[in-house]
């Protein structure tokens, strides 16, 4: 379906480009058609732009919003402050990130990629739709501490934004819905699908696995694949993976569902791009993959909501650990973290 839409979009763009010799001002629309593509072999995404057609102007507006500190109360913090591209749009070396006035919260800034496949957002899954995601950090008093109403006012007062809203949506009206839709035109387009693993699966050049990577792939399939399911390396479920609660006593998913059965459950993170996105876990407590593997081997805390698959832990031999790490390394997508399309335009 998506591919069909993109094909129609591309074809119609070509038709448009050929139907007349446009003057240079008209050229903007015809050049570089932007389309959301589902990588080969991937499932149907949850968000497909059916109510928010992707276009270059919308993408550029979303990118500008993403990197604009104006979206915070004191104009110091942007989305990009805690979601940095070189870190897979997470924040490297920060168990928790610094918000406005250097306030800190309880949870690790999650990486941003392949978001159109997500069925919920945040570690507790409290947000049920990608278009509703950006407003949460903007209005959170310890993150950007701004109101969406003020954001609308600030952007309306800015001639550059007014013209960008016109280019993206047809007129200069700025409202929270358009802001949300522009955000998703950028955030949803951030797809990471060119790691060595992907090339291996597609049989492309550069995708030949070494014996150790193949062995690691098997270790993954036997021990990790149920929850960190291919090809997104998460099943988007909420699970308690046996981390002992800290003094924060973050109840996780139960904060949203108010159900004791969901205590200490968190949304399953992807195993893609681990090289760039450390530290790990919902509170960023582990800096290395070795620490994570040791947790699964011997650190699991038994509790009523512990995932049943983890009740006995996951004990791996040293060799299996090394092999698994070699495989996980094939999930790091260098093209994605260096893709200039996603960079701030200065």
């Amino acid at each position, binding site marked *: 379906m998506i591919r069909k839409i993109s094909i129609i979009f591309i074809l119609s763009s070509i038709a448009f480009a050929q139907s007349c010799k446009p003057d240079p001002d008209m050229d903007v629309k015809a050049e570089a058609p932007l389309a959301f593509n589902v990588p080969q072999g991937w499932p149907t995404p949850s968000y497909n732009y059916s109510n928010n057609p992707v276009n270059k102007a919308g993408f550029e507006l979303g990118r500008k919003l993403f990197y604009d500190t104006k979206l915070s109360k004191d104009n110091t913090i942007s989305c990009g402050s805690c979601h940095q591209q070189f870190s897979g749009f997470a924040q490297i070396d920060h168990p928790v990130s610094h918000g406005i006035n250097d306030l800190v919260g309880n949870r690790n800034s999650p990486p941003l990629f392949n978001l159109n496949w997500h069925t919920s957002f945040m570690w507790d899954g*409290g947000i049920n739709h990608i*278009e509703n995601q950006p407003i949460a950090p903007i209005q959170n008093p310890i993150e950007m501490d701004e109101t969406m109403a003020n954001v609308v006012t600030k952007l309306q007062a800015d001639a550059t934004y007014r013209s960008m809203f016109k280019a993206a949506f047809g007129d200069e009206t700025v409202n929270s819905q358009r802001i949300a839709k522009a955000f998703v035109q950028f955030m949803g387009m951030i797809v990471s699908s060119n790691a060595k693993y992907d090339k291996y699966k597609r049989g492309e050049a550069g995708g030949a696995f070494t014996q150790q990577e193949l062995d690691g792939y098997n270790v993954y399939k036997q021990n990790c694949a149920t929850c960190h399911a291919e090809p997104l390396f998460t099943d988007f479920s909420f699970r308690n993976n046996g981390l002992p609660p800290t003094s924060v006593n973050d109840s996780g998913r139960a904060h949203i569902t108010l159900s004791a059965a969901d205590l200490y459950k968190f949304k399953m993170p992807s195993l893609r791009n681990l090289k760039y996105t450390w530290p790990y876990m919902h509170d960023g407590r582990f800096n290395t993959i070795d620490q994570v593997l040791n947790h699964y081997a011997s650190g699991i805390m038994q509790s009523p909501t512990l995932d049943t698959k983890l009740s006995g832990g996951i004990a791996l031999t040293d060799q299996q650990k090394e092999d698994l790490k070699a495989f996980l390394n094939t999930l790091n997508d260098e093209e994605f973290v260096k893709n200039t399309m996603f960079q701030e335009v200065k």
Partner: protein
Amino acid sequence: MVSFRKFGVMRKLLIISIALVLLLACTKKPDPVSEPKSEDKGFMLMFDNYVNSDKLIYDKYYLNENKDSFKVSAFKYYISNISLKSDDGHNYIEEESYHLIDNGKDSSKIISLKGVKAGSYIQVQFLIGVDSARNVSGAQTGALDPNNAMFWDWNTGYIMAKIEGYSPQASKYPNNLALHIAGFKHPNSVLRWVTLSLPTVKYAENQKVTVHIKTNLAEWFRTPNLIKFSDLSIVASEGKEAQKIADNYADMFSIDHID
């Protein structure tokens, strides 16, 4: 070839320009005197907020059923999915039926129903709150804009109804009332259907009919769950307390009169 194509484009542009000129000429602003204003005709619902028999006025003190004294600084609620039932079975269903009634904003209290056909109407039905579909459909606008301060950004969903105010009996410092009633999913849904019988309303399309609906805020604290502000003055999450209030306010509406 190129020049021929250019000629084609030019001709098209010319035709479009002529059409535009004609169109602009035709859409001259109607004379405000001869054209009746839309408010002068149509089928309207008018919500009048009360505390028992007194009109709700902000910052005036009232008593709840438990004789706790309180005043109100904000009273807002969503009305959605409005329909009318006629005596011959042809029903009216409002499209894009989402309205935020805000006691502080008089214009929000009148709902003009578009496209109601002539007939005898015997019942009005609506939902208190925003249906679950619009709670899971991403960014909305108009009455559903999150900037109306009726939206939870951390746990996606609309606050279906809200009272803010003050009561000396409220136990939590600084004695504020903040009842934010939200939840659209089972078992925490606070959505409640309201069905009100009308004394038969004969409506012709060029006529004006206003159904005045009385909203009694006192019902929030009365039945079936007696609310004492010393026990319950803040509701800021889904759950049992929100359910209690929703069960209470489900019958806060009544037909007052029709004119």
